Structures are given as structure tokens and as C-alpha cells.
């Protein structure tokens, strides 16, 4: 296909291959739309824990997100959940479970799991891979946390120490007892094996046998938590085999990026999109747009050799926040949306007032992003719609502090799916 094509107009052009972009594109492609996805690089999905956090703290720990969300959106009318509507959150969780392989995500909007993080904090997540679910701490229990001598991104003793003291609140019963074991399965003489390197090793049956043999003598009947490196493409098989061989529930604990479970999820979504006929241009950074009045007409992408122009009826901006350079701030404090140059909202004008003194406090500048109407269309400072055929989804949106709320993937899923639904609705079903 040539630049701009001889008049080729896609049904939809999605910018970004993080969770938000992939979900939008997948939903549209499954409905038969002609979708093109263009992205500068991979999204944050490769770095995430692999859980879908919808709402973890308000700031009190959330037990049942479905029950907590109505008050939450009332208190935060600019939040992406308020813009997308609560229906979208539940729909998105139901929908995503069906798109991914069996067991890739389990759980529901009605009850958060409490899953141990790599420092041993019980973190609330609505959905999690089946390989993590047995780590759920809500009912207490006995746990053995397993470290791998050649993995520097996991410290079982520190984790277990915190886990044993985790405050589970009144809604939970049962105490947590946790202890640590470190094993040294063969690494072929390499001191530093990356999480991906471990995942490949765990896919090897012989390697698993050495792990099982080394671990068996130190088990005490409690569930066994591994760092989340139990295989990439065949995680389900690896996990089930370890469960069977060890005779106790086995679970994974996510740790520092790059994330093996995050990669699993990104790969599964990409595969589903390809099956549904969506096309992805990687390395395609959007460097400019041309609009005409209230419509975006075309997008210029800085592809391999020279800029290419693409046209579509609808556009979805899913370029993420500052972490993915969807948003950028220069040394004068000016914030810019990098792809479509949309207006950005939420930046305190006074530099001294942007960030609080305490790192873990709420920061005035944290909710910066693209403001949208309830059809997820970008707004200017006078609350007018900038382009009526552009929707914004995911971490690019204003109004959230997802890393504090524990709502990252929840926002991307809900707004990503909602953006697609809105485009389909407009199109007349």
C-alpha cells in the first residue's frame, strides 16, 4: 500500500498499542471495521503487573469496586470513569475476559482480590491471571515465597516479612503466615538472568523438574508463591504442572518491569487483533495532523523512511501519559499532547504549586491530561469539542491518578472499549 493510498479511507485509525489502543482496535475490528493502528513503540502493558486494577483505594481500600464506583465518580466528575460512564467499566471487564485465552483473567468487578506485591503489600485488583489468583490474601493462609538465586528483581525474605504483618482490615478474616525459601536452579553459569530469561527456562520440562526437586523438601503444605516468571506462551501449562507436582496451590507475584505477565497480556491482545483483521504499523510516530473545522482529516506518520499520510473517518488517540510520551512537558513547564496537539488541561500555572513536598502525597499536577466530553471527544479550554471524530482513551485522559487509585488497566479497558462503542453507535450499529 502506498502513502495516503489512492484515496483509501480507513473506518478508524487508532494511535497507540497500549491496552487502550489495542482494546479499541480489537472491538472495532471484530465488528468488521477497517482498522489501522499506528504506534511509535510498545505500550505500558509490557511493564504492568498483569492484573487489571479498577479501583483499589478511594483512599480507603476498596473491597467491592462495583459498589464504590458510584460515589467515586460523583466525587470526581472529571475522572475518566465519569466520562466513560459506569456501565462501560463492567462491560469492559466482561468483554476482555472473553477475548483472551481461558484463565488469562479471572475475577469480577464485585470483589477485589488482595494480591501480594513484590514488597509484600496486599494490593486490591479486580481481575488477575489465574496464575496469580491463589495468592489472594483475603482469607489469610500459609504461604511459602520462593526466590531464585539468579533473579535480582525479587526478594522473598523481605516480601514474606511484610506479608506476615500485612493489615487486612476488618472485612478479612484469617492471619497470613509467610516464610521465604531461595532455590538455585541451574542457570548455565549466568549470574543475572532476566525475568524473560527465567520464563523461557520455566517452559522447559527438564528445568521444571530441577525446580520441583529442589523445592519439595522445604514445603509445609502452604501455598507457594513464585516471582511472575512461570513461562510466557505456555504459562497455563507450566503453572498447572507445578500445581500438580508440588501438590499445593502455586501462584505468581508480579515484580519489576519488564513484566512477564504484562507481555503475555500484550501478546494475547495483539494476536486477537491480528485474527480479527486489524493492521498494526509499529514505529509509526504521529508527527502531525490536518483538520478541517470540527473534523480531523488526516494524520501524518513518521514511518520507516518518509512521512506517510493516513486518512480515516474516526480517530482514537490512545498514546498514554507522560510515561509513554503521549504527554510531554518542556523546561518552561508547557505541556503538550504529542500526536494531535490537543489542548491539555489540569496543569497548575504556578511551577511551585505543581508538586507536593511529600512524594507519596496527592500532587496538583498529577491529573494533567486531555479533557473530554461524555463521548470521549477532546475539549478545549472553553469546553468546546475540538474534533468531533476524535476520541481519547487510556492514560492520556485527564482527571485520574491511576497509580495511586490503582485504576490503570481499568481506565484503559473501560475508555478503550467505550471509544469503540461510541464509534460503532454513531455508525448506526
Amino acid at each position, binding site marked *: 500500500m502506498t502513502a495516503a493510498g489512492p484515496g483509501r479511507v480507513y473506518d478508524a485509525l487508532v494511535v497507540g498499542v497500549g491496552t487502550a489502543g489495542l482494546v479499541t482496535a480489537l472491538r472495532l475490528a471484530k465488528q468488521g471495521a477497517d482498522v489501522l493502528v499506528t504506534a511509535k513503540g510498545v505500550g*505500558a502493558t509490557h*511493564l*504492568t*503487573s498483569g492484573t487489571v*486494577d479498577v479501583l*483499589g483505594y478511594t483512599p480507603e*481500600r476498596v473491597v467491592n469496586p462495583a459498589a464504590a464506583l458510584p460515589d467515586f465518580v460523583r466525587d470526581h466528575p472529571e475522572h475518566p470513569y465519569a466520562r466513560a460512564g459506569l456501565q462501560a467499566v463492567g462491560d469492559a471487564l466482561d468483554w476482555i475476559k472473553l477475548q483472551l485465552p481461558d484463565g488469562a483473567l479471572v475475577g469480577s468487578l464485585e470483589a477485589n482480590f488482595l494480591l501480594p*506485591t*513484590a*514488597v*509484600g*503489600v*496486599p*494490593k486490591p485488583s479486580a481481575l488477575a491471571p489465574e496464575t496469580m489468583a491463589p495468592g489472594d490474601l483475603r482469607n489469610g493462609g500459609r504461604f511459602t515465597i520462593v526466590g531464585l538465586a*539468579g533473579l*535480582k*528483581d*525479587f*526478594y522473598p*525474605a*523481605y516480601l514474606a*516479612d*511484610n506479608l*506476615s*504483618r*500485612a*493489615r487486612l482490615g476488618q472485612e478479612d478474616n484469617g492471619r497470613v503466615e509467610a516464610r521465604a525459601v531461595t532455590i538455585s536452579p541451574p542457570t548455565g*553459569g*549466568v*549470574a*543475572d538472568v532476566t525475568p524473560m530469561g527465567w520464563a523461557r527456562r520455566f517452559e522447559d520440562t527438564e528445568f521444571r523438574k530441577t525446580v520441583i526437586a529442589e523445592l519439595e523438601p522445604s514445603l509445609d503444605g502452604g501455598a507457594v508463591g513464585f516471582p511472575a516468571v512461570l513461562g510466557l506462551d505456555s504459562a497455563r501449562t507450566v503453572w498447572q504442572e507445578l500445581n500438580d507436582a508440588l501438590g499445593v496451590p502455586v501462584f505468581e507475584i*508480579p515484580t*519489576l*518491569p519488564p513484566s512477564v505477565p504484562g507481555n503475555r497480556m500484550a501478546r494475547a491482545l495483539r494476536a486477537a487483533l491480528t485474527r480479527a483483521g486489524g493492521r498494526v504499523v509499529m514505529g509509526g510516530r504521529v508527527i502531525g495532523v490536518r483538520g478541517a473545522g470540527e473534523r480531523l482529516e488526516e494524520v501524518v506518520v513518521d514511518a520507516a523512511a518518509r512521512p506517510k499520510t493516513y486518512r480515516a473517518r474516526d480517530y482514537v488517540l490512545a498514546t498514554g*501519559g*507522560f*510515561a509513554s*510520551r503521549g504527554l*510531554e*512537558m*518542556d*523546561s*518552561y*513547564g508547557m505541556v503538550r499532547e504529542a500526536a494531535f496537539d490537543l489542548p491539555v488541561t489540569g496543569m497548575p500555572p504556578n*511551577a*511551585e504549586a*505543581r*508538586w507536593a*513536598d*511529600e*512524594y*507519596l502525597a496527592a500532587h496538583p499536577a498529577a491529573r494533567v491530561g486531555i479533557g473530554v466530553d461524555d463521548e470521549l471527544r477532546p475539549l478545549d479550554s472553553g469546553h468546546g469539542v475540538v474534533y468531533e471524530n476524535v476520541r481519547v482513551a487510556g492514560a492520556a485522559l485527564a482527571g485520574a491518578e*491511576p*497509580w*495511586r487509585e*490503582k485504576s*490503570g488497566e481499568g481506565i484503559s479497558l473501560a475508555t478503550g472499549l467505550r471509544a469503540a462503542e461510541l464509534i460503532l453507535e454513531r455508525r448506526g450499529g
Partner: protein
Amino acid sequence: MVEAEVLVIGGGATGAGVARDAAMRGFSTVLVDRDDLAMGTTGRFHGLLHSGGRYAVKDPPSAAECMEENRALRRIAADAIEDTGGLFVSTPWDDPAYPDLFHSGCIEAGIPVEILSTAEILRREPRLNPRISGGFAVPDGAIDAWKTVWGCALSAKEYGATILNYHRITAVHRSDGVVTGATAVNAISGEEVAISAGFVVNASGVWAGDVANLAGCEGVTVLPGKGIMIAMSHRLVHTVVNRCKKPADGDILVPIRTVSVIGTTDTEADGPDDVAIPQDEIQLLLEEGEKLVPGFRRARALRVWAGSRPLVKDDKADDADTREMSRAFALIDHKERDGVEHFLTITGGKFTTFRKMAEVTVDRMCEHLGTARSCTTAEEALPDSGHHRFYWLGARLARREETLNDDQLICECELISRRRLESAMEQRHTQNLDDIRRTLRLAMGPCQGGFCIYRATGILHSVERLDYSAANSALLRFLQERWKGVRPILYGDQLRQARLDDWIFQGLLDVEHLT
């Protein structure tokens, strides 16, 4: 009860230098600091081993003294010094009459100076503004404060001195007009320690007035002249680059290891502990940086900090009898000034001249004690510098390559291996990751600890056998410390990194709910 002949209050460069000098001259010595060593102005300086060029026009005696001490430190502290050399360059904004004055000033002060063409300067430093017009090369260098101060402290220890870091002096004892010791409070345990000492040296920098007050010597006013510095990612230059003009703000860029530091500013601080960073000063440094290196504003700012110069205003005494050697530092003899015996205050000066300041101070002490012992600190090398080889940027990489397959890399940015980290923890025996940061430069590279801090916490937990709450507070304190240094410069790639770190520490690890 601690007993010594000499108590030195303040473990910055000056105090560590005095302690080493006194110990080497055979005095039993104790060195006390309220924090870790080198956490006052010394740990917050610009990192420049002055050739004296900066003072060549304004203050020739200071310039000469810097050059003399530059030579001495190169002899004794090679391991802490990167022999970068220095340039003085004229930009279109600088007074065209200054270079001639500079050149003759250097010659007068005995600073080796070489005239360079614009082409030669740009060949050496291709990122510099092509609109510069000529300049000079002088023997500036980069010097590591922590290595130097710890080197002095360890050397003092080898000569029998005791180091009491994390001990704050809360009282100075006097008996019949003679100082006899002090009370220190352990900053970690709260325990009081009585120190008996026949002689006390107050080397507490910008806090020197407060410490003098403790001994009843009132009216020593030390005005804190605050300056900020910004560390930029990567070596934008490989040589110390100074603007060839009357010293002012933001006119020096110092390459230090993997970063380049621009500085500095000068405003009167709200007291000695004021290290707040004003936004307008950041903008000023970026503006000046842009003049030296076009594109500076788009480079990544890593960390910003402030420190205060001790500027002595002593109304009570006249210059002639209280200020020794050079106007650049102040040795206050409290016998002459206040009639209080066996008590000296040494403050002001520069990092570059700390050894000289120590020598002059211990000379004066010997006079008071009626003993003549000569100073050898300018000749004997510090413990890690006996090889007389300057620090070399590639050293860590070379060491890393030797152990590539049998040791883990914990801090990717600064190339710190697990074994080095563990042995530093064992040596320092600390529950504070910031102590480790300063010892190894852990987490001081581009990712600012995004990855290694979690690892270091896990390792500290096992090496020091910490319980969960001590390990958690080490982690949380470190994050807060780091935040202070990045908060004022959150833009561009640094904001991106900070957001990734928010995701890692809060989104993924949920550290804010550690107990």
C-alpha cells in the same frame, strides 16, 4: 565517655581535614558530625577542583592558594579526582575585555594557562556554542567530596582517631575560661555522650556561629550564601567549562562521572538549614546553560540541590588578628577574640583549600599547646590514593567486565554489582540507603533508583538482618530523599522517568501501604 586531646566539630571537608592533620601530628583526635560525614556544604558543592582561574582577576591571592592546593590534592587524593582539565571560554554575552585580564591574572597567580583558538576548543568540546570566540586551558579538575572526606576520615582513623558520625554537639564545656570538651547526642539512639578534650576545633561551616555560641563565644555571624546546582544526564562536556568573565551565576559546567553539573547561584539563605530550590534560579541556570551548550534545555535534568557557603561577618574582631593567610577563609582564635582558651573556629574557604585550612588551624593549635609538630598532609596520600592514579570514568565498566558472569548488576546506571553493594553495606553497617547512595553513587544515574532501590532494599534487609519496618522505612525515606532532588526539575525526560517510577513504586508495588 570519650576522651581525646582534640575534638573536631563538623565532618565536612574542613573538619575531616583537621582531624586527619591532628591525628597525623600525633594528637589523639575525635571527629564528630551531627549527620553522616560530608552532608553539609561539602556534600552539596559543585565538584570543581579549582585551578584558581575563577579568582585570577578578582582575588589573586585566593587564586594562587587554589593552584597550590590543586597540586597538593592531586598528589594525595588521586582516586577522588578526575583530571578533566578546565576551559575558560568567551561567549557572545561575555565582556570582551576580560580574557586579557584573565590571562595576566593566571600568570601572576602561577596558574599554568594555555591560549586556545576557537577551532581547538570546539575540537575538544564539540557541543559548545560555535559562537564562542577563543579561550584558555587551565588545570581545573573534578573532585568527589565523599571519597575525599571519607579518605581523610579513614586516614585519621589509621592514625588512631575516632569518628562519631550521627552525633550532634549540644553543649561545649568550659572551665575557668578553658574549653574542656562537649556533649554529643547520638542522632539515632538519642543517647548522650560526654566528650572530654583538651582542645576543641569548631569546623562546622555555616553552623559555626551556633557552635561558637555553645562555647559562649557570641557574635560570630556566618551568613549562608546559598547556591543551586543541576546535574544533567550524560557528559555534555568532558572538560570543566567556565565562562571567561567576571564570576557570576550559572557560568560553570563540571563533568562528574556520568553526568554534567551546572552551577551555581548565590542568594542569602533563610538560615543554615535552608536548602529550598527557587524555580527562578532553575530557569536562570537553564538559560545560562543554553548559552554554553545549545540544546541544553532539551537535555535531561537529573537532580537539583542547594548548598550554602559560609561567609563570615565578624564585627567584634578586626581582620588583622583573626584572619589568617587569605581573606578566603577565617580562622577565629577565641583566646584573642573572647578570652576563651583552647578553642578555634575555622570556616569559610573552599573545598579545594580544605587541606591548607586544616594545616593553618592545627599549626595555631600547636602554638597554643606549646608544641612544634610539622604537617605532612600535603605529601602522604589518602588510603585509596596510594597508587597516584586519577579516577577514570571507564574504571567501573572495566571492573564490571571482569565479573560479568559471576556477579549481578544491581544499579545498571552506575554499574554497581551485588558484591560491591553488599560489602559497602557491611562496611557502613547502616540502616540508611542514602548512606549507601553517597558511598557508591547508587541510584544517582539516569533512572534515579527506579530499579535499584527496590533491589537495594531487599539486599539491605538480608545483609543487615533488618526487620520489616526498618527495611520499609529505608525504602520510603530514600524515595522521599530522591523526590526532593527531582521535584523542582520535573520536565522532559525526567518527568517521564518520574512517572514510570510512580507506576513502579505505587502502581505496581503499592509502597504507600507498607506498614
